[in-house]
């Protein structure tokens, strides 16, 4: 009995440590995970785009590069908050040459806890880094005790990490060099497995329903009274401090939003003033583009703050013109 128990314990321990290393290896080699990709130190960009889904889906580095005449990488991530952005920015600077410019997307929603969030699972392969663990400890107290446990640090977020780890092995095995989103920009459509329907362009699925819903019930963004959150401010300041320490020029901006919605947000103007004051502390003005003609037409938007690609190209023209004037 005791012998069997010992064998069981030894087997479990061996399996736990082996799987822990395998998952770490897989995740670190997955080029499609932005944190892992920048962690490999392969990115060379002069301008970095940072923020949640709005810049992810609207700022096309290939297009912006031509206008700015400098290389651009889009480090934005879906549903991310400032802390998420901060850690990605930190990992980027730690492993790659520092860019010259940071384009940071900021909107009143960015300072309100009800919008976007911090995703600790994105940083599971970087738990050896004290900055990463301190940030996770600050923002995800549920995950914090699991961080130091072999294997469980990954399987805690198993639904999000198991597949990427397997994909990482595939990338390593195939010698893949570039990620699926080579410059971090994602065209606005959900990715669909070609396994199911190779001919499909994958631009409808559930997203069609969301588009229809936007026309009728844009409750997520309309009629909001924003609530300022101190932790959001803390990590915004950390991004700005990190950029300043590396001598980056920071452009704090908000891309055009649908005026039919923005007009209903009760304290939007107060938040804009506050963000402007905060940015000014770091020598950056806050650029808002809610006065552009683009903002008036519903047809230009996928959601209240996200433009369709034609409208976003117009916006990038305006943005780059303004940046170029700065130079």
């Amino acid at each position, binding site marked *: 009995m005791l012998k069997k128990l010992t064998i069981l314990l030894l087997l*479990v321990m061996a399996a736990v440590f082996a799987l822990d290393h395998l998952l770490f290896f897989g995740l670190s080699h997955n080029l499609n995970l932005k944190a892992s990709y920048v962690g490999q130190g392969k990115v060379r960009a002069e301008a970095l785009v940072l923020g949640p889904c709005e810049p992810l889906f609207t700022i096309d580095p290939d297009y912006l590069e031509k206008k700015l005449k400098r290389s651009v990488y889009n480090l934005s991530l879906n549903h991310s908050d400032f802390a998420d952005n901060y850690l990605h920015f930190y990992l980027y600077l730690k492993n790659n040459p520092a860019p010259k410019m940071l384009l940071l997307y900021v909107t009143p929603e960015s300072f309100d806890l009800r919008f976007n969030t911090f995703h600790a699972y994105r940083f599971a392969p970087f738990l050896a880094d004290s900055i990463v663990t301190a940030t996770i400890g600050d923002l995800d107290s549920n995950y914090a*005790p699991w961080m130091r446990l072999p294997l*469980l640090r990954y399987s805690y977020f198993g639904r999000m990490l198991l*597949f990427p780890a397997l994909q990482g092995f595939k990338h390593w095995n195939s010698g893949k060099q570039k990620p699926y989103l080579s410059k971090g920009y994602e065209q606005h459509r959900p*990715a*669909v497995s070609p396994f199911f329907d190779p001919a499909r362009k994958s631009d409808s699925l559930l997203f069609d*329903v969301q588009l229809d819903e936007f026309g009728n019930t844009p409750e997520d963004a309309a009629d909001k009274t924003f609530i300022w959150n101190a932790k959001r401010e803390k990590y915004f300041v950390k991004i700005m401090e990190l950029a300043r320490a590396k001598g980056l020029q920071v452009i704090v901006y908000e891309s055009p939003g649908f005026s039919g919605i923005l007009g209903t947000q009760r304290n939007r103007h107060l938040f804009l003033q506050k963000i402007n004051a905060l940015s000014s502390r770091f020598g950056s003005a806050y650029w808002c583009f809610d006065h552009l003609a683009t903002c008036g037409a519903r047809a230009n938007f996928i959601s209240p703050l996200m433009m369709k690609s034609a409208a976003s190209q117009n916006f990038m023209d305006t943005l780059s013109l303004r940046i170029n004037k700065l130079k």
Partner: protein
Amino acid sequence: MLLEALYFVVVLALSLLFYYRTKYPLHVLFFASLFFIAYMQWCAILLLLGNAIFAFYWGRLISTSAKRKQALFVFGVSILLLELIIFKVLLLEDGAWTGSAAPKLMLTLGLSFYTLQHMAYFFDIKIGRIQPEEKAGYYILSAAYFPKLLCGPVITYQNAKKALFNAPIFKIENLVSGANRFAFGAFKKLVLADRLAPMSAAVFEGSYPLHGFTALFGGLLFTLQVYFDFSGYIDMALGISRMFGINLPENFALPLRATSITHFWRRWHMTLMQWLSAYVYYPFSYYFRKSALLSALIGIVLTLFFSAFWHGIGLTFLLWGACHMLYLSIELLAQQRQIEIPKALGWFLTIVAVSFANVFFRAGDLQVVYKLTTDIFSLNTFWPHNWLAGFVAVIAKGGELNDLFNCALAALLVLLFLLFEARLNAIANSDKFNVSWLFSLLLLIAVLGVFSDGEQFIYARF
């Protein structure tokens, strides 16, 4: 969750140690049970103790008062029912499915389960089947015994007495067998049920229109989820109990292999059905015994009405109960006319019927019921035109590769499990130390378990 699990393991280990070492094992069980409840929600102790003390003294009152026995019995049951109604109405306001009712649910920890025990206790004393317990501590322990408190199995006082109040004899086989069963339950809950939860939630909580097949499939997903969730809890409860050398009754016997609804109810939540048969079905059908068919039909209606009420006060549960009343009545009539169908067809129809009824069970409110039944009965859009967009993407909660992987993995695990379920059950009930069994389960749980956003036990809501 990690810390909670650690505390639980430590308390369990200490309880086992003291249980087998001390001269007062029942005291150990009593305090371990109180500690367990207090850890989850200390206020729940007051409710549990209040109920148990009331039941203890009221039982004695029923037994000593020969003339007013019936009146005291009716009054006692009414008090318990009223309390159940009050708490269920309070919970209903917040919606048991949304998670916002969680603090209140904790307050009423196990209320539905121990209320059944108290009611059966009154009934059994009234008809003279048992004598009232003389020691309040024993009675309270039978209600508070922690492995069964949260989600059952439902036991009567005389069963609890037989199982609990024996001198403990330490056997290593009990520990091994308990561990085998506990790990099996944890696997069912953490790997199977919690992987299915977001998939069924996508059907029941989405506001988008669905194809009929997708909506009905949501009912099947929920049926699987609730089965793995509930039977997983029961396995863990029985496993822990077995470690103490206490055998609690089984609650499931391969219900998803049932070939008729009658068959299904003999295999699903068996202890509740036994309770309902003994204390609702038989007493009421007895009054209509002159007509066998009528008495059976009335028994079915009242039993399922009580079962629906026990699960929750709301039209959705009543509709769920009504579905099963209809199914069982049809089967009863078919049985009388000696109509038989092939077993494979019977199994298929049973699964579809149970899944359809579970659409009402899970819906939460009438709006969702209306939406989903409209989806199911819109026959021209029953089958998705595009299976990827109309079915897979909905169930997988998105069209991304990661979502599809999780969906496919859950489907594979569930299929494999159901295919080998009987064999797995046999290993889980074995008292042999099987290294490969425990190793496989622990590893599967560690790699595939859902820890970050797992669901609370479904039956803890009732």
